[in-house]
């Protein structure tokens, strides 16, 4: 395949399962149908923590009861003296 812009030869690369044609002259990139979406998906996975392997689920937030603190909780308090005392008293 020839580059539609500079007419140099295009080479096919496989990036994380997505076929990319890149021009050997102007370095322009040609994407087939759906490949931009595939790349966008890959990008979002890159930003998120890597998907855990099935056998070792990386720590999801532990389960909490319906009445638990809203997500994120009050964790700023956990170093306070008040909580320190609470940890040690009946």
């Amino acid at each position, binding site marked *: 395949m020839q580059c539609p812009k500079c007419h140099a030869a295009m080479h096919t690369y496989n990036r994380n399962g997505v076929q990319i044609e890149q021009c050997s002259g102007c370095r322009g990139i040609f994407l087939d149908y759906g490949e931009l979406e595939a790349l966008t998906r890959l990008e979002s996975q890159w930003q998120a923590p890597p998907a855990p392997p099935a056998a070792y689920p990386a*720590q999801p*937030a*532990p*389960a*909490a*009861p*319906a*009445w*638990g*603190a*809203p997500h*994120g*909780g*009050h*964790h700023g*308090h*956990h*170093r*306070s003296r*008040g*909580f*320190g*005392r*609470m*940890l*040690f*008293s*009946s």
Partner: protein
Amino acid sequence: MELKGTGARDGAPQEPADGVLGALAETARRAVHGGEACRCGPGAVGVLADREDGAVVRHGGLVAKAHAAGTEAGAHAARVGLAARPELAGVLLPPVPGPRPADAGDRPVTLWPYGTPVDPDDPDAAPWEAAARLLALLHRTPPPAGPLPAMRAPEKAALAVGRMLRAAPDHPAAATVLAAWRTVEGAGSGRAELCHGDFHLGQLVRDFRGDWRLIDVDDAGLGDPAWDLARPAAWFAAGLLPGDVWARFLGAYEEAGGPAAGADPWARLDLPARALTVQTAALAVAKSTAERRGLDEVEDVMIDTCARIASARTAPAPAASP
């Protein structure tokens, strides 16, 4: 029992006075030295706790503890006997063998080895995994033959609510705490495993080998072991205990074969964690009123959690037994 370590830590040991503390100091000194002279350093002698339900005086390698006045003799003997069981030597700190010391007034007295407590100024370094393993081992140990009282965790929650109602019935938070209490009141699971009955970080000490052991068997007995996880569970649910610490604690408990968690831990923990939330909030209301102060930041968090418990109670309650 809360081993605050006041004497040794602050370098300013409180000199035991007359009365119960004086009697404890004398009992501990005699147990260590007999009639000989004492050469213990001042940092190793002093009052560790002085509350109505537990006064503790250290002398060198031993502590003498005065239990609550009115402690029922049979149940008390069974609980202290439990701590002396060889199959629990890796879990509970055993009492000092020998005849029981004389009572201090109307309070029974027991002698124990001194153990180094968790540093209260460094809760991040607390031995959460070791604590979870000890609880799992306790819960897995078949109860010994012979009579053993019920563990007192549910009773203590009810007592805390009663104390709040006597001390501060008109406190603006009292109605919220009571509304949460109504979601808990009267529930029982019918389980009869060995339980500590009052687990928190003050209930851990290192023994002479440096191994962590559980102390304070005053509330121990038979019951639903989920109550022993309920205090950390309540702290986590309130948003006070970070999720990763809670996950470490629960994970270590499950890994050690603890019977109170399982695939859906909150099916077992929900009710006792609500009860411990109510207990903590009720005591905060009672204590802050007695001390003529407002609620502090974390006490407010527990009241807020009570409000969420009360408003979530229309949801179906989890089964009280598996």
